[in-house]
């Protein structure tokens, strides 16, 4: 019998990893976890508001009502009005459109990039040849990015590319990559020592196959857990950028800028201008955190029951 080289025919697994009935098992899984359900509700509301927020708002969120500055909460203005006379409630429920766009896209890009770089740098650390060079280069790059003060760095990036939503997203994604990279790299170090990795080599996987089909799925946990804080961090940082004028342009409803604009009013007794966007921000971050935890458990078959 001659030794045949690797066949390049149908290499797809005969097994779907997640088959039919997956949705049903997801529902069963969610039913037993009230925290996860609460998170799902919050996430659903924010997504709904991201699409329809400005339409269901009682007042136009970007237009000031003449002579209605700093009114306390009342029947007409459930959350009062801000210093320029805009309805706080309308602005709070309109803000997810821009906040979620920025936070989700920035975090997802950072997650994908960070996990990829983390797997490469963790899996090839200590190996020989090109893999080791890549691994070292990635880590030094992350060191450099993290060595700069976060805020200055974002400011410089936005200043260099000019203000605008895409540039805020790019800046936040870039800044978040090292966090996902480091936690993934740490997890990869542990996973790559486990015997099933050797078993994967024996099965005939290429090194790339071992890294991405076997090590990566088992090293995603910490990165997934970091998504929710990542989203919170992104919202807060974009607020700070808005505050110094390097973020989203002013009248656009955005929780961060509403908090920073309303903060001085807190001290003079008009608590509603900053409190309500703050609460909305907090509840949203919490919702994503709960969903993140739940998804992490769901991805781990040993924790599903």
């Amino acid at each position: 019998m001659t030794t045949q080289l690797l066949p390049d025919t149908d290499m797809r697994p005969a097994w779907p990893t997640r088959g039919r009935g997956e949705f049903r098992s997801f529902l069963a899984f969610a039913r037993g976890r009230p925290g996860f359900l609460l998170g799902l509700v919050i996430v659903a509301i924010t997504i709904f508001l991201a699409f329809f927020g400005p339409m269901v708002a009682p007042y136009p969120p970007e237009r000031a009502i003449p002579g209605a500055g700093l009114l306390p909460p009342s029947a007409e203005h459930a959350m009062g009005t801000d210093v320029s006379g805009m309805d706080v409630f309308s602005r709070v429920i309109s803000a997810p459109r821009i906040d979620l766009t920025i936070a989700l896209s920035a975090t997802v890009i950072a997650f994908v990039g960070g996990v990829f770089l983390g797997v490469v740098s963790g899996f090839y650390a200590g190996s020989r040849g090109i893999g080791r060079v890549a691994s070292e280069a990635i880590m030094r790059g992350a060191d450099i990015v993290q060595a700069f003060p976060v805020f200055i760095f974002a400011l410089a990036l936005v200043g260099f590319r000019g203000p605008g939503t895409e540039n805020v997203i790019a800046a936040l994604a870039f800044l978040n990559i090292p966090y996902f990279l480091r936690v993934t790299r740490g997890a990869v170090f542990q996973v790559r020592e486990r015997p099933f990795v050797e078993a994967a080599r024996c099965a005939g996987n290429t090194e790339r196959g071992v890294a991405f089909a076997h090590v990566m799925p088992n090293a995603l946990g910490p990165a997934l857990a970091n998504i929710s804080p990542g989203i919170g961090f992104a919202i807060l940082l974009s607020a700070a950028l808005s505050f110094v004028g390097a973020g989203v342009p002013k009248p656009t409803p955005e929780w961060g800028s509403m908090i920073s604009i309303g903060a001085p009013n807190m001290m003079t007794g008009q608590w509603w201008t900053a409190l309500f966007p703050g609460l909305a921000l907090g509840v949203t971050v919490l919702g994503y955190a709960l969903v993140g935890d739940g998804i992490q458990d769901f991805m781990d078959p040993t924790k599903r029951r």
Partner: protein
Amino acid sequence: MMGERLLDVRDLVKHFPAGHRRFVKAVSGVSFHIEKGEALALVGESGSGKTTVGRCILRLIEPTAGTIIFRGQDVSTMEQDRLRALRPHMQMLFQEPYDSLNPRMPIGRIVEEPIRLGKDMSPRKRLERVVEVLDMVRLGSWALDKYPHQFSAGEQQRIGIARAIATEPELVVLDEPTSALDVSVRAEILDLLTDLQEQLGLSYLFISHDLTAVRRVCHRVAIMYLGKIVETGSTAEMFEQPLHPYSRALLSSVLYPDPHEQLSRFVLAGEIPSPIDLPPGCHLYGRCPWAVDACNAAYPDLEEILPGRRVACFRAREENAADTTASGSGRRPPGSF
């Protein structure tokens, strides 16, 4: 059936760097062969290098020197692409039943993977093959969609066996396949391994620290101590009369579940030395009750002192002859420290 060499290992050496230009001499010149359909046991304690030998053969680690001829090809220097093409012919069963299975893969995919990567088969044929091997290890198609943690340790090890035989390999390296299992499961796994070996004509390299575990499965035994093979012979003869003092100590340290059995007094003194600073002569010098000064000067070669029995000991011929005349249950034990 026998007679043709499937695997031929010559002068295998493996050193691991240990910092400060020092090396852990895990394997220092090991030679042996396995014939087609033969089960060879490689027995030794921790630090003997037995596991390193197994990993070198499968090229999970790179050997420092030596040749490994498998199916007529030198595996020791083969590049990765050709090595991967050879993977379906040589497989491994791991010590840890649970940890050697990817916890995020269903059983079907775990068992299928080596076939998918190594054989040109349609998905349908692969599924049939997976069900077939699961039946062979006395699991069934019901296991396909389940995950590793849903099985007991014994069942997990049977899944590992199914994966190892899925590609119809010629050689399976068994790395302590029963040492993590409870006694009642251990016997069952050993039976299964023996059955499969006979049915499929497999060759085994059975790595173990427990001489008795290999007794039923293996035809021949090679005993390792600190990176060297100290004795080889057929399993039956080895259990009948171990010739090397280390083999003898290993065998006499087995405690049978019988309170009336006389415990052998052949117990080695002291600790296993570090494989970084090996003694200049025989590695057992300092623990061995037979040792003389010459033993510390040079390492003895493996010599055939009885037909089919090769032993690396200057004193074995003399001491064993003396022993048989003195109807020996071993010598007096060395004084404790």
